């Protein structure tokens, strides 16, 4: 393992981890937003009674 391999390894891990976390965050946000829209939609009275 030459010096540059370590450098790329470190940078690779850090930035891929951050990007991965960002995508997970984005996906969770979209899921919650969809649920929020579904809850606030006009039919929410009926939907809540069923739940």
């Amino acid at each position, binding site marked *: 393992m030459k010096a540059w391999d*370590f450098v790329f390894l470190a940078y690779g891990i850090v930035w891929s981890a951050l990007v991965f*976390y960002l995508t997970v965050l984005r996906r969770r*946000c979209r899921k919650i937003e969809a649920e*929020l829209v579904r809850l606030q939609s006009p039919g929410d009275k009926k939907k809540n009674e069923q*739940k």
Partner: protein
Amino acid sequence: MASTTKKSGRGRSILGGLAFFFILMGLYFALIQAPPDAYQGEVQRIMYLHIPSILTAYLSFFIVFIGSALFLWKRERRDDILAYAAAEIGVLFTGLTIVEGSIWGKPAWGVWWTWDARLTLTAILLLIFVGYLMLRSLIEDEDQSAVCGAVLGIIGFLDIPLIHMSVYWWRTLHQPPSILRPDKLPWENVHPAMLIALSINFIAFLLVYFYLLSSRIRLGELQEEVKKTRLYGAA
């Protein structure tokens, strides 16, 4: 609520763009522009990653402390969401810091892990705030989990100086301070070009940190919103 999310949504994308720009600049300066270290050679470039991530980790635990203290004082959900978001991202950055530290340690000292004071301190912080996330997830009742999280956030932060002292005294007892020379901050005798790279990367890390933090807070607010509509919507 809708109007603020649109405005902060746009604010967030500007922050994201800026962060991305600074990341590219930082990478360019760190990997290409900055000269290799006379003593360690190319591997020293990990420092541009290591120092900023340690500082952002400490910053996030300070934000957890502020969020926890505010929550205990005024009991507003907003502060609790801030504390939880900062803790989650803090754990992420601390974990990455330890990974970088050991990757840097292998070529520099030949071992994956040294009981160096700074690394040990970061590992302890990681343990404390993994405990924070575990505690928060294992208490069902939401208000109770928020209060308990706030208590651990405050006590954990108060403990940091004591841990810092005890680890450094323990360190100097066993082995002369290592190359990182914890007492002397690493950027004193550093080549100016390196200094620029370091500061650019530091700004990049800060921007990335606040971008992640704001989107995690938005997620927390959305969850709060869902809870409110389900509560009041069903009323």
